[in-house]
């Protein structure tokens, strides 16, 4: 029985996959791997988040976490919507400004060097500060260069819970919520340079209770601001809204059950060298925990935001969304993956299909695990086979996907992937829904292998058109009438 993990594919992406000739031409012309982005999909994703804001009567901004994809087309298309952008490096800030984002729609987050801070202050974007030291550096820059007052957010972490002790993973970012007053001291001291507009957090968890504690901690910190006479009006809850990658939850359940059995040796291995994805067998029992992205995640994206806003605040005993509204606060978020749901795919060409003596079938691809970083991000999801002509034989077939690096570890995924039909050399594998973090996040030129090119696909005049990613602007010229 093949253990499929079929990707969730929306009708637009399906219509792209149906253009097999176009896919083959693009791959032939631009090489393998090829990142294909679908910028027009962003509009609907932004609107879906906006609808949750409206349902809760909240105002605020959706800042796209740029780091999820390097594409220019996506950023430029996003500039044409009402969303903002979250930049985490100097180059990302330059990119955002160049794509048409005005400073009011840009937020700088993450670790920053002095150049990044200078351009942020000079251009007038909002700076989400990671530490007291960063605020002091920023204030010094502003004074030294006689720059306008900079809008800042204070990122907090390490929120304390009451009753049951709710533990969160330690974060390297942010100021401990208990020491928030030190941040406000610095801001008051440099009142002519720094304008506090809100407080922020980001927790690397899918757990709602932890986020509820953090959001409440932000409300308490903002109350401290009120007491001091500061008037920040916003709470930034970061990202982590997630994507539901799989079409069928029962496939995920069957697969993970089978993986547990394989780890225990009760069935043939499902992975290269019996890798357990965090599970291991000890004395006939399974130890460890499944170290994977929850690929089947029905509560994700805007729905996850909605659930968070409906969650009752542990201390103040009122839904978090209602509390934000009661306090007249704006809500800010930084979704990356969730905003890029169904916004792109990676095409890789098949170099070789061979059957090993031990019964394994190998499909060698002209791309590596950095080009489709499913494994690095723990996302288990099948590629779609795009045949140039016909299937090489009756399916299904279980295969291992080898990459193009001269490196033992270079498997696109360590999992045996079941394909519904056997590919031939020259066919393409389409890794769909990979625009968020799974496309070029960690692509490298190791072994002087090229980083894949990127093409933007868009609908114009009722047909699919394409251009190189860097050529794309959200202005589409209609074809001249004959």
């Amino acid at each position, binding site marked *: 029985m093949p253990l499929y993990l079929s990707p969730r594919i929306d009708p637009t992406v399906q219509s792209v996959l149906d253009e097999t000739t176009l896919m083959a031409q693009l791959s032939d012309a631009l090489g393998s791997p090829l990142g294909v982005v679908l910028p027009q999909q962003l509009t609907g994703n932004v609107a879906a988040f906006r609808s949750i804001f409206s349902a809760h009567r909240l105002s605020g901004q959706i800042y796209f976490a740029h780091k999820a994809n390097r594409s220019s087309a996506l950023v430029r298309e996003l500039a044409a919507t009402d969303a903002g952008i979250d930049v985490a490096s100097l180059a990302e800030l330059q990119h955002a400004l160049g794509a048409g984002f005005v400073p009011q729609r840009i937020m700088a987050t993450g670790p920053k060097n002095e150049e990044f801070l200078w351009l942020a202050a000079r251009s007038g974007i909002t700076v989400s500060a990671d530490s007291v030291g960063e605020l002091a550096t920023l204030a010094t820059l502003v004074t030294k260069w006689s720059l306008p007052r900079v809008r800042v957010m204070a990122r907090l972490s390490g929120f304390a819970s009451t009753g049951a002790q709710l533990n969160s993973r330690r974060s390297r970012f942010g100021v401990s919520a208990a020491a928030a007053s030190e941040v406000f001291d610095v801001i008051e001291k440099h009142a002519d340079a720094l304008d506090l507009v809100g407080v922020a957090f980001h927790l*690397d968890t899918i757990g709602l209770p932890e986020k509820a504690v953090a959001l409440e901690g932000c409300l308490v910190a903002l109350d401290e601001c009120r007491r001091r006479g500061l008037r920040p009006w916003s709470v930034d809850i970061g990202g982590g809204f997630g994507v539901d990658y799989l079409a069928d939850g029962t496939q995920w359940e069957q697969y993970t059950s089978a993986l547990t059995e394989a780890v225990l040796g009760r069935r043939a291995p499902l992975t290269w060298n019996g890798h357990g994805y965090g599970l291991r067998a000890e004395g006939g029992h399974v*130890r460890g*925990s499944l170290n994977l992205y929850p690929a089947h995640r029905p509560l994700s994206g805007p729905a996850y935001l909605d659930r968070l806003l409906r969650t009752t605040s542990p201390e103040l005993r009122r839904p978090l969304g209602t509390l934000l509204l009661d*306090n007249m606060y704006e809500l800010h978020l930084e979704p990356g993956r969730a905003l890029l749901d169904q916004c792109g795919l990676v095409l890789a060409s098949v170099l070789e299909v061979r059957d090993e003596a031990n019964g394994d079938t190998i499909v060698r691809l002209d791309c590596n695990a950095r080009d489709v970083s499913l494994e690095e991000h*723990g996302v288990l999801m099948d590629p779609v086979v795009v045949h140039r002509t016909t299937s090489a034989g009756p399916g299904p077939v279980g295969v291992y996907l080898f990459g193009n690096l001269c490196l033992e570890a270079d498997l696109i995924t360590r999992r045996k992937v079941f394909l519904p039909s056997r590919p031939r050399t020259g066919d393409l594998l389409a890794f769909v829904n990979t625009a968020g973090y799974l496309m070029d996040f960690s692509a490298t030129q190791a072994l002087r292998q090229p980083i894949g090119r990127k093409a933007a696909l868009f609908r114009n005049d009722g047909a699919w058109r394409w251009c190189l990613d860097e050529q794309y602007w959200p202005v589409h010229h209609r074809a001249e009438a004959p």
Partner: protein
Amino acid sequence: MRFETMTDAIGNTPLVRIDPAVHGLRNITLYAKMELLNPFGSLKDRAAWNMARPLLTQAVERGDTVVELSSGNTAKALAVIAGMHGLSFRSVTNRMKVAEIKDLLLLLGAEIDELPGQAECLDPTDTDDPLTRMYHRLAESGGGYLHTDQYFNELNVDAHLNGTGPEIVKDLDGRAPDYFIACVGTAGSSTGVATALRQHNPDVRVVGLVAHKSDFIPGIRTIDEVHEVGLFDPDVYDTVETITADDAIDGLLTLVRRCGTLAGPTGGGAYQGAVRHLRAIDAQLTEHRTAVFIVCDRVESYMSYLRERRPELFGRPPRRNSLRTVTDADVRRAATMQVAEAERWIAEGRGLVVDLRSPFAYQALHIDGSINIVDELFAELLHGGLPFGRRQPVLLVCPVGEKSARYAALLTRMGHPDARSLDGGIIAWRDAGAELVRD
């Protein structure tokens, strides 16, 4: 019955026949082992006491903290036992999903350590599971802990091998039942009882019940999770079957409504799983058989669990003056006041301003002279009638003027002649630059 201490009351629970009119089996007599009648409320009292007892003297001498990885009944029993011996208890859990149990543990004086949720951005180097994390903590603290280790401790099984199992045999006049059906949690009770029963009759058929993978049934593990349990041995069970949360609740309802048994979801699941398994066999039988299942704990701790999954069970008649009865047409007819007019109206002291936001938000910033009645409290007051006189003009304030309009409409329908809503709410008030104060 006279006892020195409550722990003496653990065990010796009754075996009660389930009325055949309820389960409909013709050739099988079905008995329930009433573990919910243990003094701290569950089957886990036995294992908790059996595991902790031999270590208590030393632990008391050293002043150790009792520690267990549990989010339910074992934690409850250990918290009570620890308290009785002047020790503190800490429960480490990867999410306590039932609110009442968490509150009960806190009431009993337990400390609860909840482990972080799954990471959103995967860290491939993080392979820790809750158990490993807990062992790290134990090691770091350099002792001072009594860890009962219920998932791996043979004394857990032993409590049932020498207690629950033999009690069943005794109550069946020295014979083991033909079928034994149990939910699998730590696997302690099912393994212990099954072993004891087979010592009397090797042909006892043992059915293990696990939760459907995507379901959550408190106290029952899913088919994948049982493999993480040290005490779980697949050979104990002749068959392992799956039950859903719906099955468990259906069974619970049968037990609580028809059998005088205030069982929790695990007992409900065991009943439902037992009847489902036995029904097929019953049809083929020509001679008489007996079967036993375990009612693990009581229903009272699972109200929020039941309310979430079966809200219809808690349906109540509508209360009068309910906001839900206000129609959109009522709201459109409700009188509103613009910010500029409201500023004058308030300055002239023309009436009462009621701020419906939370006390936290009100205290941070509010309109001078307003009073705060948070909306849920205001709704409660209105069920009883108007909380102010009809000659008292009222201006209602909420964040955006939506909730206040609904309440103004409701007050109007209740006969108040001058109840109005601040148009655009306090956000419009702020945006117009009107004054907000903080006391």
